[in-house]
């Protein structure tokens, strides 16, 4: 079953054309690597698939609805003044996550954030913030994962945790992964898209 289908997809920001004429077919349980230099539109493509941006040219269809999409952006999308627990609780409520507390606890534990769960995010290191962002992304067990440079900011321990997570998800969920470091996840990928 096709999860994402794009024909001639393009996106401009004012005068600047960031994405041009993209054709895409992502099937269920695919893991697509999106590569390209900075400014080639990787983040834009993921934003389009998430539904945050609308195409300015071409067509895009995503058959997964909002509540089942997990989006990891450049920014962690969490409130700095709130604690990790409070942030995840809010998202857990908004995403109607069943057994919210247990799931939050499990994710925080898995990504090594349980000890600092009550500290405000502003006190977190970059690596910890990225890990929290991963928790947020995985919280509602999404069917489609859109990960924009998931390894950015992670230390070795965090990167290993992410490796394990991706190994577990590959083949069970659909993933789009934008990355500078394709070799790390190359083995898991079912396809790749290089943006000029």
């Amino acid at each position, binding site marked *: 079953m096709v999860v994402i289908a794009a024909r001639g997809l393009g996106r401009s920001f004012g005068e600047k054309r960031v994405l041009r004429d993209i054709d895409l077919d992502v099937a269920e349980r695919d893991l697509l690597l999106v590569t390209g230099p900075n400014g080639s539109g990787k983040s834009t493509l993921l934003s389009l698939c998430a539904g945050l941006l609308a195409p300015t040219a071409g067509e895009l269809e995503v058959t997964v*609805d*909002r509540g089942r999409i997990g*989006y990891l952006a450049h*920014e962690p999308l*969490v409130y700095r003044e709130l604690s990790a627990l409070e942030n995840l609780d809010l998202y857990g409520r*908004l995403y*109607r996550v069943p057994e919210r507390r247990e799931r939050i606890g499990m994710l925080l534990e898995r990504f090594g954030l349980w000890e600092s769960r009550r500290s405000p995010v502003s006190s977190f290191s970059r690596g910890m913030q990225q890990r929290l962002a991963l928790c947020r992304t995985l919280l509602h067990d999404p069917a489609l994962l859109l990960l924009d440079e998931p390894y950015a900011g992670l230390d070795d321990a965090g990167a290993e945790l992410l490796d394990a997570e991706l190994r577990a998800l590959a083949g069970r969920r659909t993933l789009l992964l934008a990355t500078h470091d394709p070799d790390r996840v190359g083995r898991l990928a079912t396809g790749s898209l290089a943006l000029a």
Partner: protein
Amino acid sequence: MTYFADVGALARKDLLLELRSRDTLPAMLLFVVSTLVVFNFSLPADTGDLAAYGLLWVAIVFTAILGLTRAFAAEREQRVLDGLVLAPCDRSAIWLGKGIAVVAFLALAEVVALPAFALFFEPVTWELVAAVALADVGLAAVGTLLAAMAAASRARELLLPLLFLPLVIPVVVGGVGASIGDDPGRYLAFLGLYDLIFAILSWASFEYVVTE
């Protein structure tokens, strides 16, 4: 009913944020009292007593602008708004949750402003309090939507007052009328009408302001 659960979670989040950062509300309190003090110096000696009521409403509107400028600050700085917009909840719940918080801040500012006004200038009547309560709803409804618009723009703090002021002129008319008019009921009813119309309009169109 999950809609109201969402609204509750969002409103609680906004109140919690303010409790932690404590930047918006103290500024609003100080601003409104400072403005009232400035009025003392700006009103010539022989202006009627009623002029003070007019200026009170000006103070309220500008204090609202001050608060609204900060309304989406947290979401904008970390692009958290994207995270909220992606969630499966109705986008209007974001507006309602935030709007409730804005009303709360305005009300708290007025809890300080009205007694100060009564102390410095003129007595505060029940009609005035009712008008202020109704006005808060209208100001928050329209202001929250416009704040979201301004947050998405380059001009931000500059844009919000420009968008806001023409839209809230009717609120000022209703408020002043209820404060000093012979027939406050008519003006209170008008404020209620304004609230109804613009709350529904804001509620329905918020989705289109935060998505593409």
